[in-house]
């Protein structure tokens, strides 16, 4: 229990380093994926890169900008970034079913298809802003990661013998789903219980480390 008390007593500094590590992980993934995209112009890599770009923005807004300003102003901002990150991650898995073979856009951040995601993310963050809670973001992320878990499970079952990281991807999606569900429970029933929040931080860290491991391992020869 002493370690637990120590963590709770120093939660602000732990949060700072937690966010810093995740931002560094996201920056590494974005850099590596951007290099691969530059070589291949493959759209799936582009959307994958965008997901981690938005996660980095979300963590910067949540842990470095929010403490400096009123939460009324910053909450919709970081919510918007997190929701967009989740959208891009799922879109990177399904883009082939959504876009036509020769469909191409100059920008992967703003185009007619992605515009719908921006509008949805904006609506979600503004709904939470209006009602003063996080329900819409939690609900959207739980649905999104349930969907991502199903897709990644299907990918894993199809290619488990050939591609080793697919099982870690599936695991990462399940852990993300669990983390968002815990987040919702902590908010609705446990008034942001510190013990639950600590577990969420650990889960999130594991998810980002898993992605970093996959990206570094696969791109080590570049």
């Amino acid at each position, binding site marked *: 229990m002493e370690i637990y008390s120590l963590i709770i007593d120093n939660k602000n500094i732990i949060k700072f380093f937690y966010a810093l590590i995740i931002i560094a992980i996201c920056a590494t993934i974005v850099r590596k994926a951007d290099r691969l995209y530059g*070589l*291949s112009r*493959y759209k799936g890599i582009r959307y994958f890169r965008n997901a981690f770009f938005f996660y980095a923005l979300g963590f910067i807004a949540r842990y470095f900008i929010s403490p400096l300003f009123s939460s009324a102003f910053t909450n919709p901002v970081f919510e918007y970034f997190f929701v967009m990150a989740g959208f891009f991650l799922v879109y990177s*898995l399904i883009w082939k079913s959504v876009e036509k073979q020769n469909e191409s856009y100059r920008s992967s951040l703003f185009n007619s298809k992605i515009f719908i995601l921006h509008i949805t993310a904006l609506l979600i963050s503004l709904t939470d802003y209006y009602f003063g809670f996080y329900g819409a973001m939690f609900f959207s992320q739980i649905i999104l990661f349930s969907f991502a878990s199903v897709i990644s499970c299907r990918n894993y079952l199809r290619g488990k013998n*050939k591609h080793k990281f697919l099982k870690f991807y599936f695991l990462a999606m399940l852990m993300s789903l669990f983390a968002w569900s815990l987040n919702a429970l902590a908010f609705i029933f446990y008034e942001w219980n510190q013990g639950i929040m600590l577990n969420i931080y650990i889960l999130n860290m594991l998810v980002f480390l898993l992605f970093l491991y996959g990206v570094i391992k696969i*791109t080590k020869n*570049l």
Partner: protein
Amino acid sequence: MSKKRERLDVIRDILKAIRENREIKPTRLLYASNLSPQMFKEYIGELLEKEFIKESTDKDDKKRFVLAKKGQDFLVEYRVIENFIENFGL
């Protein structure tokens, strides 16, 4: 019906065809790439622009394509890119 090749696969096929022949005539490359003339022109234009391939002429002043350093590197990198796409389900 066979599945349409991805853009990346087409580029790999073109570069591999050039590598296997060391230098290759445009008509022969068009045949090897299995593309329509219009698509072939677009891909070759892009590969020349990116300096993946180079144009040269033989002693009869006929045009040939040869693989450039960037193209050789791409074939190595292609394996990494392919691995990345498949392992992340992209």
